[in-house]
């Protein structure tokens, strides 16, 4: 695998379970060792210069882990200290404020809800102000409110110059947040491009019709990709094909009661890329 992420990017790392996303992140973070090859963060090799590399990196792990002995504030102070930062309360307070954790500062980690624990994980990754932030499925199983708050904060960090690498199974999140995306399959990069180019590369659109009766003309049968009674989904290459389709229906005397046009989204691109041999 060869992959370069530019400083300041909001980069998406997508792939099905077992594709190697978390393994890749573990190698970058120094939690696992690669059999071969090298990884560097802003020029710092993750093994030869591990101290510099780790200072540059903030990781939000996928698992909801916490130390049950300590409060939120203690947890964040310890994490600052591990990165060599003393007296970091001003920044800790700011991070807690943005993640809506201030009211929970002196609460033991055990007493927090899953969503709150997730927020603390994000805060822990940010206590040392890392220029590169890796979020490994940060919104898995969390409510809409936290998602929106989290993305608002992470977008702000990205605007401030932080590089953000995101893995997620929510492709709509990746589509709206990431400027560039890599798709992984069985440990290999199978697609790597800007989100705009990936969407553009998947040409075509879907025309969803509710017909007055269950009788699709023979000429349109080849375009059909879905059918549920009198509701059919047709695949078109471009907008120019809409009128010929409607004309064919008129000629066959089949009325249209509802019409909906769908453009391909990242999920379509993902399914298409992952379906390739």
């Amino acid at each position: 695998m060869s992959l370069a992420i530019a400083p300041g990017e909001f980069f998406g790392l997508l792939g099905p379970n077992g594709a190697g996303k978390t393994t890749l992140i573990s190698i970058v973070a120094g939690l696992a060792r690669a059999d071969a090859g090298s990884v560097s963060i802003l020029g710092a090799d993750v093994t030869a210069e591990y101290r510099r590399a780790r200072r540059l990196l903030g990781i939000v792990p996928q698992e909801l882990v916490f130390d049950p002995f300590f409060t939120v504030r203690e947890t964040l102070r310890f994490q600052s200290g591990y990165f060599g930062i003393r007296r970091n309360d001003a920044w800790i307070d700011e991070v807690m404020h943005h993640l809506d954790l201030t009211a929970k500062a002196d609460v033991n980690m055990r007493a927090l809800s899953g969503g709150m624990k997730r927020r603390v994980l994000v805060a822990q990754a940010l206590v040392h102000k890392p220029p590169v932030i890796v979020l490994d499925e940060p919104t898995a199983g969390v409510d809409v409110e936290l998602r929106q708050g989290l993305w608002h904060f992470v977008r702000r960090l990205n605007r401030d110059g932080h590089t953000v690498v995101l893995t997620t199974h929510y492709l709509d999140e990746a589509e709206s947040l990431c400027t560039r995306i890599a798709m992984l399959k069985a440990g290999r990069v199978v697609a790597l491009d800007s989100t705009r180019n990936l969407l553009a590369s998947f040409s075509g659109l879907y025309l969803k019709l509710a017909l007055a009766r269950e009788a699709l003309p023979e000429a349109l049968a080849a375009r059909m990709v879905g059918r549920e009674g009198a509701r059919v989904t047709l695949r078109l290459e471009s907008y120019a094909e809409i009128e010929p389709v409607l004309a064919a229906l008129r000629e066959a005397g089949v009325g249209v009661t509802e019409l909906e046009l769908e453009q391909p989204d990242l999920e379509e691109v993902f399914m298409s890329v992952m379906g390739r041999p």
Partner: protein
Amino acid sequence: MTGFATLLYKELLRFWKVSFQTMAAPVLTALLYLLIFAHALEGRVNVYRDVSYTAFLVPGLVMMSVLQNAFANSSSSLIQSKISGNLVFVLLPPISYQEFFWAYVLASMVRASAVGLGVLAAAAWFVELRLQAPLWALAFALLCSGLLGTLGLVAGIWAERFDQLAGFQNFVILPLTFLSGVFYSIHSLPPFWQGLSHANPFFYMIDGFRYGFFGVSDVPPVVSLAVVGVSFALAVAGTLWMLKRGYKLRG
């Protein structure tokens, strides 16, 4: 340095927050041993001249508490962090493997020393104690707590489940401690068992520490110090090697 100091402080705070379980309970256990064995055997067993059995028992119980708590501290902390997954918070920052090692071992030494002092203070209510060679006692307390803290770290790294760690504790540490001469002098044993006791490194820890109290011991304290010192050096070297390779910690 801040990373190391923070990890050490975190480890100290961890056991302090549950001090009823980590400090008060082992002091009470040692005290119960003292009361029961002293009541049963005082006046019936005479080990050293001019030393009562109760007085003889105290250094052994202090050292036994030191050893068990040093081992328990590093091993339980590490296995809890490993199993709950929060060890990642220590593995992600730029903390070197040496800093990691010394933070865990020093925290174990502090807990072991605190429990040892607690047992000593409690025992002082029941029996008059004088330290004939305090520096020897101090040297053994530090070296032995360091050694068991290191072994606890090894067990914590190696074990993947709580029952594996409990097995290590119950089938290795506990028998070696109980058969090391805490409750008796090995001179009271038949020759075969005396010889076997010399193969138990824990015997030298108890015997050397006891020399600090009474100025007499089963083997010369220099020999005990050498055995414990070499064991500690080997354990440190082996554990640092494991940590450097990331054995069972960094996949």
